[in-house]
């Protein structure tokens, strides 16, 4: 065994755990790498993510009376009360920078686990590097289905992926049709990186399986200076439902251009991303009354589980925003990883991986509407039930599935 800083730390931790006096005196820490875009077009995602991870860190490192993993007591009891320290790295939404930064986190910062990344395209390279160094990676908020299908052993995702999200949308369409809504044709509008492409492929397949006609399928270049040609084509197709898969900047421009070109779809059912962002609603919320987006989080849940409201308040104090679909998943990502490290009683990559494989957290011990957190052999949690949210009167209400819904869907949008 090589003598590395990590092993020395491990030895120190083990020694500290043996004696109660030593345990009190030891100040070891567990270092986790967090890789997000902190500059460039998606920098705001990174800034929000940081606040979310710091909220989770607060829950783990300090004593709180919540029914969440590691909330009670300080630090990780399995490692003698060791505190978690986060090292933030900036991938600038660039897969190659993500690769380099992950390597730096692992070799220089000596992190024992990595969490990321917002963009699925970056998660591809980050998870490959983690695999090579045998460092567990939690994909907190990436939703591309292809990510977990690569057979990586150190890849885990507690949140739903786009096939689960899209299936929820089509279940919703089926339910609405039964009630007499006219939903025959769909327009897909998606950006050209892995997120948009995977999302559209899934939606195309689901539409074919369930007998919906695709009126038009527009793949556009992300961060384009103009979307008029694209919107013109959407307008010509005039489908019953518009289904965008866009990040925030494109989402804002899409909605503005739609208004300018006089295109008002019957309904918009969005694949989250930009459509779960406060910035988008600040900019064009007045044009989005009734828009539906998928999500894995809803503040409504606070009515059933009061801790959700309290933790949201903690996050809001740091960020000035409510939890959204992304920040809530990031929050859970760190808790799930910390819980595994605690049970592994070790910072060794393989041991943490084994603990992640054995993870079984009941849904009530999360802030999500999930059944539980339990990974399949691909590292995907199939019990992370998605919800559909509708933007009504300046906030989101849960409208689907029926067991989670608190309101009936408004259909068509207006």
């Amino acid at each position, binding site marked *: 065994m090589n003598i590395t800083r990590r092993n020395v730390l491990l030895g120190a931790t083990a020694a500290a755990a043996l004696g109660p006096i030593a345990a009190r005196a030891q100040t070891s820490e567990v270092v986790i790498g967090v890789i997000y875009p902190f500059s460039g077009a998606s920098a705001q995602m990174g800034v929000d993510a940081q606040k979310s991870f710091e909220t989770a860190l607060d829950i783990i490192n300090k004593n709180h009376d919540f029914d969440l993993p590691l909330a009670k007591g300080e630090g990780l009891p399995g490692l003698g009360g060791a505190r978690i320290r986060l090292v933030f790295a900036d991938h600038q939404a660039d897969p190659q920078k993500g690769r380099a930064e992950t390597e730096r986190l692992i070799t220089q910062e000596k992190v024992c686990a990595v969490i990321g990344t917002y963009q699925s395209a970056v998660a591809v390279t980050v998870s490959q590097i983690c695999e090579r160094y045998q460092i567990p990676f939690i994909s907190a908020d990436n939703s591309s289905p292809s990510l977990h299908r690569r057979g990586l052993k150190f890849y885990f995702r507690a949140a739903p992926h786009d096939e689960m999200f899209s299936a929820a949308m089509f279940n919703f369409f089926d339910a609405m049709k039964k009630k007499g809504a006219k939903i025959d044709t769909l327009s897909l509008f998606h950006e050209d990186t892995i997120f948009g492409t995977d999302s559209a492929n899934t939606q195309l397949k689901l539409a074919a399986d369930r007998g919906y006609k695709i009126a038009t399928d527009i793949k556009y270049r992300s961060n384009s*200076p103009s979307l008029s040609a694209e919107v013109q*084509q959407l307008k010509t197709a005039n489908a019953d439902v518009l289904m965008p898969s866009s990040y925030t900047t494109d989402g804002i421009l899409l909605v503005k*251009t739609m208004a300018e*070109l006089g295109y008002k779809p019957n309904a918009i059912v969005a694949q989250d991303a930009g459509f779960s962002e406060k910035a988008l609603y600040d*900019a064009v919320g007045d044009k989005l009354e009734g828009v539906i987006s998928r999500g894995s989080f809803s503040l409504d849940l606070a009515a059933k589980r009061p801790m959700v409201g309290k933790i949201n308040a903690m996050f809001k104090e740091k960020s000035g925003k409510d939890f959204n679909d992304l920040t809530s998943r990031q929050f859970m990502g760190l808790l799930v990883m910390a819980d595994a490290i605690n049970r592994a009683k070790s910072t060794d990559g393989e041991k943490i991986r084994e603990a992640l494989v054995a993870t079984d957290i009941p849904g009530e011990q999360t802030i999500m509407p999930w059944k539980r957190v339990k990974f399949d052999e691909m590292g995907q949690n199939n019990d992370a039930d998605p919800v559909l949210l509708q933007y009504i009167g300046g906030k989101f209400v849960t409208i689907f599935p029926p067991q989670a819904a608190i309101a009936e869907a408004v259909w068509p949008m207006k």
Partner: protein
Amino acid sequence: MTAETIIQSLASGLLMGLLYGLIAVGLALIFGLMDVVNFAHGEFLMIAMYATFFLFAFFAIDPLLSAPLVAAALFVFGAVVYLLIVRFAVRAKANAGMVQIFSTFGLAIVMRGLAQYFFTPDYRSVTHSWLGGKTVSVAGIFLPVPQLVGALVAIAAFGALYLFINRTDFGRALEATREDAGAVALVGIDKNKVFALGWGLGAALVGLSGAIMAIFFYIYPDVGASFALIAYVTVALGGFGSVFGAFAGGIIVGLVEATTALLLPPSLKAVGIYAVYLLVVFIRPRGLFGSM
């Protein structure tokens, strides 16, 4: 594809193209004057958009009213950038070209970083302007009012610039300095003043574009990047140093973009722009209206 779709796309392309032209004219002016490419051009656009946004957010000044103010502020900013940075960069004895490139490129990165630090990376938007969200419809063709006004402003600004260069003493001094910076010194024209004026004018034009764009585009620290890239292509397409070429280049780029998006999948619409650019460079390396 209906005739309506085609006309709508071309109309949208033309409106966007005039705006691309307005953004590019400032770049062409500076290059024509002193052979320096301003790599911070996109960041000039970005601060103009932020200035417009803050005037709107804090003082409720409509972008249409603040456009002249922003243009004036950018004029001063452009002149100061020349006097503080570019003036020294062009004096470099060794690797002059590299020094010039990296001085404005460095400025771009610093401006972007400062914007992210002070304004946060949040996406801003001018929500309720007089023109925002308004559209006129002619025979089923929708013309967004902000872009329409932007196009008119672009035409007016280009006309004014043309008259300024051709009809005023300052304009003639600008032309003369452009022809031979050494000779004008002999007749008592202060080269630095003329260059500072050129930078100020170039920045004022991009400031005007930024103010108009703030009405219909989102604002964030990196917003300049994609427009600057188009501006460089526009200038090269129209002909380096030709103010008229930049303007015509902008219109061509806008129309090509719209046509490509009609014929090919929209994700490939930038390909059309660069294909036409390569074609022009291949046939006429100095650009369509270039004279060098």
